[in-house]
C-alpha cells in the first residue's frame, strides 16, 4: 500500500450536553457563583457540577493511504462532521490523536467566508484565501473559477443581488479549485439543482482521480460508491465497520430499514430546508390497499404524505421518487417534471401519488428515495428512506421469472426476441 496520508489513533471528542445550543451569559455565571452556597448539589436543571457529557466521537482509529478516496457514511449525529472538524483542526480532540501528511483543505460548507456586501470577484478572493489558497494561486485560477461558476456577467455585482443558485455555483466553484494534498468534504453535494449537482459530482470525480487523498462524507450512497473504493461507517461516535464501499454501504443501508414502516419522522438520513417535509410513505396494491409486499408486474401506487409550515400552495415544486437497489444505487426515477401535469394544483399539505401501471421490478428487496424541491430549494430529501419487498409476479404475462441471480437488483423491461 502507498504511504499513509491520514492516521487516526483512538480519537475522541466529548461535548458538554447543551453546549452547542446555548451560550452562557455572564450574568448566569455570576448568579450561579452567588447562589452556589445555597444550592443543593444534585438538584436543579443539570447545569451544576454533574453536568452531562456526551461523546460525539470515541475510540476512532483508521488509516488512509495517500491518494485514497474514503467515503464516510452514517446517520445524522453519528459523528461524521465532528470527525472532519477534528481532522481539519477546527476543534481539538478530547483524547487520542491524528496525523495528517500534506496540506489539509476542508470543504465543510459551500460559501465559507462569503459576504453579501462584497462583489463576486471580491468574494472569490476572500473565500479562496480563507479556504487556504494563496493569492497567486487564486490569480492563476481566477478565470477557471469564473468559467466553472458561469456568473461572468455579475462579477462586479455585490453578492446580495445574486440568486441563491448563483451564489451556490460561485461558492462551489471556488471550493472545487482548492488543491490541497488532503481534502475533507462534508455533504457539499446536497445543495443546488440537479444539473449543478451532477457537475459537482463530476468535479469531485476529477479530484479523486488526481491523486489527492479525500475523505468524503455524503448521504448519497451512490455518490460514495462512485467515488470511493473504501468506506467507513460511523455509528454513535464509533466505527461500526470499514471495508470496500459496496459492503459497508449495503450494511449501512440495511440498518436504516428498522424503524416503523412508512413513517419518516425518525428518518435520520434526510436533508433540505424543511419548509415542506414528507411525513409518511407507503405502497398500495392494485386494490388500493396499503401493503408492505407488492407483486412484480402489478399496478402499484406509491403514496407519500407531506406537510408544509405555511398554508399557501407549493410554488415551483418538483417531487421525485427514485427506486434503488439495496446499495442505494438508483434503478429508475419517477419525477413530477417528467410524468405530471403541471397545471395540477399542489396543496400546501397533502399526498402525492405516483402510479406505476406495471411494477417493473424483479422479486427482491428495494429502497425508495424521496425528493422534494420547492421555492427554488431542496426542501426535503430522504435517501433510502424505506425498503419494500417485491414478490414473484407475472410481469411478462408468461408466468416466467427472471433467473435467480437477478433477485434484488433487476429492472424488468418488456421486450421481444426473434432470430433472423
Amino acid at each position, binding site marked *: 500500500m502507498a504511504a499513509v496520508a491520514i492516521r487516526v*489513533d*483512538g*480519537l*475522541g471528542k466529548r*461535548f458538554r450536553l447543551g*453546549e*452547542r445550543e446555548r*451560550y*452562557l*451569559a*455572564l*450574568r448566569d*455565571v455570576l448568579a450561579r457563583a452567588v447562589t452556589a452556597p445555597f444550592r443543593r448539589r444534585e438538584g436543579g436543571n443539570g447545569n451544576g457540577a454533574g453536568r452531562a457529557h456526551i461523546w460525539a466521537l470515541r*475510540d476512532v482509529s483508521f488509516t488512509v493511504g495517500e491518494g485514497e478516496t474514503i467515503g464516510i457514511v452514517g446517520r445524522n449525529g453519528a459523528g461524521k462532521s465532528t470527525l472532519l*472538524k*477534528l*481532522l*481539519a*483542526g*477546527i*476543534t*481539538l*480532540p*478530547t*483524547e*487520542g*490523536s*491524528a*496525523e*495528517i*501528511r*500534506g*496540506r*489539509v483543505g*476542508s470543504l*465543510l*460548507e459551500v460559501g*465559507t*467566508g462569503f*459576504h453579501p*456586501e*462584497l462583489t463576486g470577484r*471580491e468574494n472569490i*478572493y*476572500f473565500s479562496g*484565501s*480563507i*479556504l*487556504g489558497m*494563496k*493569492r497567486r494561486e487564486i490569480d492563476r485560477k481566477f478565470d477557471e473559477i469564473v468559467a466553472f461558476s458561469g456568473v461572468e456577467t455579475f462579477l462586479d455585482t*455585490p453578492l446580495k443581488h445574486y440568486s441563491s443558485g448563483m451564489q451556490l455555483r460561485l461558492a462551489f466553484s471556488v471550493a472545487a479549485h482548492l488543491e490541497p*494534498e488532503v481534502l475533507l468534504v462534508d455533504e457539499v453535494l446536497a445543495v443546488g439543482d440537479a444539473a449543478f449537482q451532477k457537475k459537482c459530482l463530476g468535479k469531485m470525480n476529477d479530484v479523486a482521480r488526481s491523486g489527492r487523498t479525500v475523505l468524503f462524507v455524503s448521504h448519497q450512497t451512490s455518490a460514495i460508491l462512485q467515488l470511493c473504493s473504501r468506506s467507513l461507517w460511523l455509528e454513535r461516535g464509533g466505527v461500526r465497520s470499514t471495508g470496500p464501499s459496496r459492503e459497508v454501504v449495503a450494511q449501512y443501508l440495511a440498518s436504516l430499514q428498522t424503524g416503523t414502516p412508512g413513517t419518516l419522522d425518525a428518518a435520520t438520513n434526510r436533508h433540505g430546508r424543511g419548509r415542506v417535509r414528507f411525513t409518511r410513505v407507503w405502497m398500495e396494491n392494485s386494490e388500493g390497499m396499503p401493503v408492505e409486499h407488492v407483486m412484480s408486474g402489478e399496478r402499484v401506487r406509491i403514496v407519500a404524505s407531506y406537510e408544509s409550515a405555511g398554508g399557501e400552495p407549493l410554488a415551483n415544486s418538483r417531487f421525485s421518487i427514485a427506486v434503488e437497489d439495496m446499495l442505494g444505487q438508483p434503478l429508475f426515477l419517477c419525477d413530477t417534471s417528467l410524468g405530471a401535469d403541471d397545471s395540477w394544483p399542489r396543496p400546501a399539505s397533502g399526498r402525492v401519488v405516483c402510479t406505476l401501471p406495471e411494477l417493473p421490478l424483479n422479486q427482491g428487496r428495494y429502497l425508495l428515495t424521496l425528493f422534494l424541491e420547492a421555492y427554488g430549494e431542496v426542501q426535503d430529501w430522504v435517501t433510502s428512506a424505506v425498503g419494500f419487498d417485491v414478490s414473484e409476479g407475472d410481469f411478462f404475462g408468461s408466468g416466467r421469472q427472471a433467473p435467480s441471480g437477478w433477485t434484488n437488483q433487476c429492472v424488468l423491461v418488456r421486450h421481444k426476441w426473434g432470430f433472423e
Partner: protein
Amino acid sequence: MEEALAVAATRAPAAAESHSGPHAVPVKRIVPPGRFWALDLKELADYRELLYFLVWREIKVRYKQTVIGAGWAVLQPVATMLVFSLFFGRLAKIPSGGLPYPLFFYTALLPWTYFAGALAGATNSVVENQRVITKVYFPRVLLPLSAVFSGLVDFAIAFVLLAGMAVYYRVTPGPWLAFVPVFLLLAMLTAFGAGLWLAALNALYRDVRYVVPFLIQFWMFASPVAYPSSLVPERWRAMYGLNPMAGVIDGFRWAITGENPPSIGLVSASATAVIVMVAAGLWYFRRVEATVADVV
C-alpha cells in the same frame, strides 16, 4: 489510549505543523489541547496573506455600507473635539499646557478614537466570524489582529486633518515627530492586548458586548483625553501610567506638538503594562481558542 493521551500532551502546541526535511510534506498533528499555549509564529507567518485579506475585507465592507464612507473617520473625532473644546475648554477652562484647545483635544482624540474602534472591533471579531470559525481552520488570533490593523485606515484619514490643523496653528515640526509611530504602535498593542481578552470572553459570555461600550467610556475618563495628565498628582503618575493609553496619549500629544514631554516614569509604566497585557491576552486567548469552535 491513556498512553496516547500522555504522549500527545507533551507535544504542544496542539495541531502544529512541522517540517522534517528539505522537501518534506508538512505533517499536521492533531492532539488534545496541552498545558502550554505558545504562539506559533511560523504558522502565523504562513497565514499572513489571510490576515491581509481579513483586513481588506473589513475595510471594504465598512466603507460599502456607509453613505459618507471615509467621512466617518473624521466626523467622530472632530465632533468630539468641538464639544470638548467648548465644554472642557472654554467653559471648564481645563489647563492645556499652552496648546490651543482644538489641537489639545484632537491630538488625544486621534489615538483614542482609533483605540476605541479597534478594541470594539476586536471584541466582536470572534463572534462575528462564528460561521467561518466552525467551518475552517486558521489561527483565530488573526481575527482580533485584523481589527487592530483595519482601524489604521480611519486613523490615517483622520491624521490628514491633524496635519492640516498643525499647519493652521503653526506647530513647528521637530525630531519628536519620529515618535508618532512608536506611540501608535503602543496604542495598537494596547488594543490588541485588551482585544484578546474581550474577544475570548465575548465568545464565551455574550453579554460582554454590552459591557464593552461602558468599559470604553470609563477607560476614556481614566485616560488624559479631556484633561492633561499633569492634573494627576506627581506621586500617582507612574501608577496612572499603568493605563497604557495614558502613555499613548501623553506621548502622542508631545510627538505632534513638541510641547510637554511625557514623564519617563509614566511612559515606561505604560510600556510595561502593555507587554504584560499582550502576553496575558495571548495566553488566555489561546486557551479559549482550543474550544472556541464548540461554543460560539
